[in-house]
């Protein structure tokens, strides 16, 4: 605590971050006859569900007021509450296999770039069950932040042997360990790639363990974490940092043999010793993890650790992982990564044919607690109206569960006033497992380049205020966009609602039926597919009403294999809360160059005639008309607006 003079305080209270009911759905939009699944966490005995058409979510008494109309559907019921939790933290999992279960003696090795070596025990490579201390693991030790080997007998006893030399954060190391079941001899290796005066972080240790045999566990082999139990036991000892080229052998390897395995393919003379030799530079755009040894012990990443990351051998001469994948053999694991919350389904809604297109929500109520799970009903094919509101769901995802008010020191400065937190902000501050936005940094300080919608997104809610929102209603993104739905309803326009994600997957075809497309208040994030579709629409005479600002700014990619996942690389420049590392400017999902569209020859002016130059979050002010606005061609736009 620094030396703030304090206001007079009689009582201090903590832990207000409670939301007893939260939920999400498996898709953001559905057409009639399509089905949406809803997942709910409710810590109260029961909750009721109603579907509402969302018109306006602004709670400001000086504003239009909250407006939502109940729509009868078969899901209007009382449901039993159950607690559903989220397990954040990314890792690689290789399913249990007889080759792994039979291990007596073994060797483990990898190249690592730890980001929080002082955090406590962190699993690099683990075939380990925490509950009964069964198995073995190459770790960063809680004892002295050095590399260690954990051996457990499966009867609750473990021993950790360490090099005793603390690792430096954000430096590459070769690390390895071997264990002989016959002699109980252990060897440990910790070799830095960079050498600094007065730093002693290299070690080679030969010692003996008391553990006579390693406990069997039937657990998967995991990189970046372990589990307390065999099944979905709690994730434990989560690692922050990079791992490159992990290897596992079924006997004690000499240091020279480890060196032969370090880089590339398994040499013939070691092929009977090697159990697995994983190459993360394969399938960078995928969830797959490939074992290049003859055993094919392939696995997958869980919770989206960052891929397309520079490896230990990056030369600085190559910037694009597609040009030299062998220099991008690292995965960066974070203890707060999250893709799919993976909750059980509580109810499903098949969109009734009679339900008109629009913005809706499943409104959950439990006692005084409430949450809304928003979704879009698209028009049935061929039944489109003339007007479509393009809901900027990619931008909602980029901002999903942001922690501006509680993490960022600068919010008060850029906002020109104190940060104002509501219940969602307090909850997200204390429940980091709900994941991060692409504006946040991970716990280890690295930028968040992925965001998923398969989790409750608590700032994508009616009634939510944001400290970034303009003074007054304080609306931002989703809830600000309900001013647009409110206006459309108030004016009596018939309109459809479609989403960024629909545009990404369906392209220009989605827009073709419409005479006019309305943007949201802040359509900032666009994939190439979305950009191309909007340009094609305009070139074919389509009209675009730009009802926001900071539009068509960042380039994103959607994951090619799995739903509901975007990537942003904060490259080069632009207003940004973190910066991509040099050499990590290309999307891992697609290989496309990330960053600002305007740095790729596609400034926002090409789509909407104007572009972002500066920002402010303090007070809103009116526009001033310039002489060209008096051109008679623009008269229809300015009808009823005062002159210069």
């Amino acid at each position, binding site marked *: *605590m*620094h*030396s*703030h*003079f*304090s*206001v*007079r*305080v*009689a*009582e*201090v*209270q*903590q*832990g*207000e*971050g409670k939301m007893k009911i939260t939920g999400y759905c498996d898709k953001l939009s559905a057409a009639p006859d399509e089905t949406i699944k809803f997942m709910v966490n409710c810590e109260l005995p029961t909750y009721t569900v109603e579907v509402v058409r969302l018109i306006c979510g602004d*709670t*400001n*008494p*000086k504003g239009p007021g909250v407006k939502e109309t109940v729509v009868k559907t078969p899901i209007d019921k009382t449901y039993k509450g159950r607690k559903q939790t989220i397990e954040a933290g990314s890792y690689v999992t290789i399913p249990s296999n007889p080759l792994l279960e039979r291990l007596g003696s073994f060797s483990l090795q990898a190249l690592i770039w730890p980001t929080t070596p002082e955090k406590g025990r962190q699993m690099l490579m683990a075939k380990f069950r925490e509950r009964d201390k069964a198995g073995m693991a190459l770790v960063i030790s809680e004892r002295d932040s050095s590399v260690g080997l954990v051996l457990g007998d499966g009867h609750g006893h473990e021993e950790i042997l360490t090099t005793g030399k603390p690792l430096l954060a954000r430096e590459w190391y070769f690390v390895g360990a071997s264990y002989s079941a016959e002699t109980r001899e252990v060897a440990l290796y910790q070799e830095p790639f960079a050498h600094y005066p007065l730093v002693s972080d290299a070690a080679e240790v030969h010692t003996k363990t008391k553990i006579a045999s390693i406990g069997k566990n039937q657990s998967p082999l995991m990189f970046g974490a372990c589990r307390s139990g065999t099944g979905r036991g709690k994730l434990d000892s989560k690692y922050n940092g990079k791992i490159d080229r992990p290897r596992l052998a079924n006997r004690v390897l000499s240091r020279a043999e480890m060196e032969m395995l370090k880089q590339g393919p398994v040499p013939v003379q070691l092929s009977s010793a090697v159990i697995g030799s994983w190459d993360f530079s394969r399938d960078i755009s995928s969830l797959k993890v490939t074992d290049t040894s003859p055993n094919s012990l392939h696995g997958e990443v869980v919770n989206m650790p960052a891929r397309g990351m520079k490896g230990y051998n990056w030369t600085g001469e190559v910037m694009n992982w597609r040009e030299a994948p062998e220099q991008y053999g690292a995965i960066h694991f974070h203890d707060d990564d999250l893709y799919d919350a993976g909750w059980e389904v509580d109810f499903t809604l098949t969109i009734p044919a009679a339900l008109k297109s629009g913005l809706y929500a499943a409104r959950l109520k439990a006692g005084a607690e409430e949450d809304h799970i928003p979704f879009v009903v698209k028009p049935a094919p061929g039944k489109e109206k003339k007007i479509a509101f393009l809901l900027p769901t990619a931008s909602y995802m980029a901002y999903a569960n942001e922690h501006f*008010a*509680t*993490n*960022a*020191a*600068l919010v*008060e*400065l850029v906002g*020109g*006033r*104190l*940060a*104002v*937190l*509501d219940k969602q902000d*307090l909850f997200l*501050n*204390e429940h*980091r497992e709900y994941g991060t936005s692409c504006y946040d940094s991970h*716990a280890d300080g690295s930028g968040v380049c992925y965001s998923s919608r398969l989790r409750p997104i608590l700032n994508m809610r009616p*009634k939510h*205020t944001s400290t970034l929102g303009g*003074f007054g209603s304080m609306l931002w993104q989703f809830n600000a966009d309900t001013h647009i739905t409110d206006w459309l309803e108030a004016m009596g326009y018939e309109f459809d609602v479609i989403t960024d994600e629909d545009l990404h997957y369906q392209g220009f075809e989605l827009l073709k039926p419409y005479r006019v497309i309305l943007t949201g208040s802040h359509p900032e994030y666009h994939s190439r597919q979305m950009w191309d579709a909007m340009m094609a629409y305009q070139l074919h005479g389509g009209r675009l009403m730009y009802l926001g600002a900071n539009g068509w700014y960042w380039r994103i990619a959607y994951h090619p294999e799995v739903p509901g996942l975007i990537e942003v690389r904060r490259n080069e420049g632009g207003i940004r809360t973190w910066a991509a590392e040099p050499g990590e400017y290309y999307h891992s999902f697609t290989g496309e160059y990330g960053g600002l569209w305007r740095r790729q020859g596609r400034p926002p002016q090409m789509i909407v005639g104007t572009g972002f130059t500066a920002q402010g979050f*303090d*007070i809103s002010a009116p526009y001033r008309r310039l002489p060209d606005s008096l051109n008679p061609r623009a008269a229809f736009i300015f009808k009823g607006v005062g002159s210069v």
Partner: protein
Amino acid sequence: MLTVYKVGEHDRAVVEEFHKTPIGHHSPALQRVLNVFRSEPTAGKYVLICTKPHKQWVLGQLTGERGKPVKILKDQVFTRLEDAEREVFHCGCQRVHIRILARYP
């Protein structure tokens, strides 16, 4: 702090301006003072927690530690955001020894 400018008693002239307009466009002299006050590190930074939408707020303090609950200063309740701004501004003034001659009515 992000700035080398040292706020002190010589800035007292801006107090009245802030009293009148805590939120809005400010003179360069006041903005310079606010830039210093608002650039404090996260630990101990004052925030508001909304207790009744658009009607009531309570002052809180960030811990600067990721995931730690916001400290809620229960008896510092405001029904106008501007009053909360003035209170926190006074704390800043005290810190740099600017005397507040008259509180805002």
